[in-house]
């Protein structure tokens, strides 16, 4: 990726990060659509021998030999038995029965996590610069589990099973599958086994935002990653015949409209179908759009496909207008014709012009790449949101990371739009999603693993969470682009990752297997369910009182079940244990709550650590009065020794 290393402070603080030798011992396994090994991001120049711990393979298959891998891409496997059992044999004329990536997504995520340094990277000149993964010296192992027809859980489980055998250190999964109990969810099951082996599992939170309760991958042994923007944009303005300009974004490169004003038509008025505004395949009347710029509404079909539909009907350009579902979030696309995406407000104003002017005209002006955009980061509208629908007491997502308009490596067998008619081939592509933010965190986790090989997956996650930023570069609180208001822990979790601070968090909230087993007991899982999930004969002690609030998680979610009730107060207690991973120090607590509707108290309010790895516990009491159901309120608990701030978000909800 370009820009995100600077945005995250990796470039400026390079000397703080571990020696390249230790990072090159870390192996990141990526479960995705496979890999394009010829990407420059997998150049292995300067890398030493494959780590001796590595047990993986470079499996042969369609257009993939055992010698396709190198010292950077050290493993490549594919898992298709479940897919083929359901959908029939793979059509090798359409997709490779091997780890080869025919989609681009897997190459994008793998190169984001651990791609080598590539100078002169860009997409048609956009986002140009030196591209690199977060952990440039880490090794990559690709596990192809997603195919044209989807990603099947039997294949995902098989890939995780093999990745554990292979000895990966970090697993990156930019996929999800709805909201199942942990013992039914293959990703949660596989991640539990990985966690037991000391493997950090980083997963995307999902793109179902801004709706509440829309998260995937919420098991507490998974690091769940939401998406934010960075300080970069690709402006492309719509200039109307009435002299007004509206800003949008685009990655179009090709013959421009030469600032020529062209007739402008609303797609809904150039179609005979009721949803003509969406520019679905075959719905535009060529006679009504030929030579014109067409305004299409976002939704239902792919954004780039709308452009292809307009082009096929003879349109000269397209303005893609967000609707309420996307608000002002601008996601740039490498359209096949001159096109730009505008926010809902601009879209509504542009439509008013089209409807009111007898001869509306417009043109689109492409401005290239702009950096230094403020505010940044902001939470992407599409990023899935809490509360956690499986265990409301565990706050998710854990963190956000860059996931909007991310440039990274791409497959050579598909164009940047992914459309079959797109014959362009690019080494790098710019796409958006929590799929893109997840591998940022996977790569950062690899850096932390190299710096602190003794840290558990929970300790690494804790370091990333407690040091995350809740403020933008300009000092203002991080915004939610869906609302234009400050985002909340249900949107950004602990905040935007700050890897430089995460290297030295001072204290961590650690967790081990027995903590998670006790958590399952607190969920009242049966012995059979626990055994399905954790493969152990662990039996919950009937004489012991288990509580979800005792899980040593680095954040707090408190659910008061008193919606609409009258009078009285409710008290919820949590306990936490901090482990010293820095020097001897005394930490004092500070408490912040957004409203008077709840109170936080912590006992003790000061913790003194004299030794490395010393543990100290504290108790938190949340006290709340009655509030209407669906009310949320937020706060934070911070421990500081004057040098470090160990910050935990607090989310209170009344249900």
């Amino acid at each position, binding site marked *: 990726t370009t820009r995100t290393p600077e945005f995250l402070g990796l470039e400026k603080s390079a000397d703080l990060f571990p020696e390249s030798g230790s990072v090159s011992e870390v192996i990141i396994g990526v479960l995705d659509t496979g890999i394009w090994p010829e990407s420059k991001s997998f150049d292995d120049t300067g890398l030493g021998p494959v780590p001796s711990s590595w047990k993986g393979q470079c499996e042969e298959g369609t257009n993939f030999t055992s010698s396709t891998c190198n010292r950077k891409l050290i493993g490549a496997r594919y898992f298709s038995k479940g897919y083929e059992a*359901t959908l029939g044999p793979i059509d090798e004329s359409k997709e490779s029965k091997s780890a080869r990536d025919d989609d681009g997504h897997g190459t994008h995520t793998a190169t984001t996590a651990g791609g080598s340094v590539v100078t002169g990277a860009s997409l048609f000149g956009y986002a140009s610069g030196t591209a690199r993964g977060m952990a440039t010296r880490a090794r990559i192992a690709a596990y192809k589990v997603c195919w044209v027809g989807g990603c*099947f859980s*039997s294949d995902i489980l098989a890939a995780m099973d093999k990745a554990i055998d292979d000895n990966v250190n970090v697993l990156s999964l930019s996929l999800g*599958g709805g909201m199942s109990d942990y013992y039914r969810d293959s990703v949660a099951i596989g991640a539990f086994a990985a966690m037991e082996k000391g493997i950090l599992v980083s997963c995307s939170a999902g793109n179902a935002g801004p709706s509440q309760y829309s998260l995937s991958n919420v098991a507490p042994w998974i690091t769940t990653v939401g998406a934010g923007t960075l300080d970069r944009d690709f402006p492309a303005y719509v200039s109307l015949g009435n002299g007004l300009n509206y800003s949008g974004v685009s990655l179009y490169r090709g013959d421009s409209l030469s600032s020529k004003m062209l007739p402008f038509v609303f797609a809904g008025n150039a179609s005979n179908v009721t949803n003509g505004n969406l520019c679905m395949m075959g719905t535009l009347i060529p006679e009504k759009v030929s030579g014109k710029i067409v305004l299409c509404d976002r939704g239902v079909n792919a954004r780039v496909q709308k452009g292809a539909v307009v082009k096929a009907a003879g349109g000269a350009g397209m303005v893609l207008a967000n609707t309420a579902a996307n608000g002002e979030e601008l996601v740039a696309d490498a359209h096949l014709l001159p096109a730009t995406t505008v926010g809902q407000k601009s879209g509504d104003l542009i439509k008013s012009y089209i409807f009111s002017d007898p001869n509306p005209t417009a043109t689109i002006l492409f401005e290239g790449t702009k950096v230094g955009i403020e505010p940044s980061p902001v939470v992407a509208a599409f990023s899935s949101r809490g509360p956690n629908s499986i265990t409301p007491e565990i706050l998710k997502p854990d963190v956000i990371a860059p996931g909007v308009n991310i440039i990274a490596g791409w497959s050579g067998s598909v164009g940047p739009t992914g459309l079959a008619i797109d014959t362009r081939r690019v080494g790098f592509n710019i796409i958006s999603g929590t799929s893109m933010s997840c591998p940022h965190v996977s790569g950062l986790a690899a850096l932390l693993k190299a710096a602190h090989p003794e840290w558990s997956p929970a300790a690494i996650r804790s370091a990333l969470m407690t040091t995350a930023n809740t403020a933008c570069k300009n000092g203002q609180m991080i915004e939610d682009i869906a609302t234009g208001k400050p985002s909340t822990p249900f949107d950004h979790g602990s905040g935007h990752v700050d890897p430089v601070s995460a290297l030295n968090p001072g204290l961590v909230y650690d967790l081990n297997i027995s903590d998670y087993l006790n958590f399952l007991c607190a969920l009242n899982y049966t012995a059979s369910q626990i055994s399905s999930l954790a493969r152990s004969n662990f039996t919950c002690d009937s004489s012991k009182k288990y509580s979800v609030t005792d899980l040593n998680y680095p954040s707090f979610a408190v659910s008061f079940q008193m919606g609409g009730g009258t009078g009285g107060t409710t008290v919820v207690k949590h306990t936490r244990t901090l482990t010293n991973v820095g020097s001897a120090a005394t930490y004092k607590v500070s408490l912040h709550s957004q409203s008077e509707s709840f109170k936080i108290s912590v006992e003790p309010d000061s913790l003194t650590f004299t030794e490395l790895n010393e543990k100290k516990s504290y108790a938190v009491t949340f006290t709340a009065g009655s509030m209407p159901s669906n009310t949320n309120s937020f706060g934070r608990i911070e421990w500081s020794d004057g040098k470090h701030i160990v910050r935990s978000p607090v989310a209170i909800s009344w249900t």
Partner: protein
Amino acid sequence: ASERKTYIVHMAKSKMPASFDDHTYWYHSSLESVSDSAEMLYTYNNVVHGFSTRLTAEEAQSLENQPGILSVLPELKYELH
């Protein structure tokens, strides 16, 4: 009813009868007890004690009632984010 779907079968390894030397033989034996034709797609060693296979709904229900079976869960489809 005769349509086959993929299931992930979770086994309680600790309940493996002593007559089996290897857990994979036990898995096969359990599968064969409910289906003459079903084949294993994968056997899992780290993430699950068990295997995935194609079964009819009736076979799946029958397998669930066999000794040593923890659960027989239908396959789920996941999507890229």
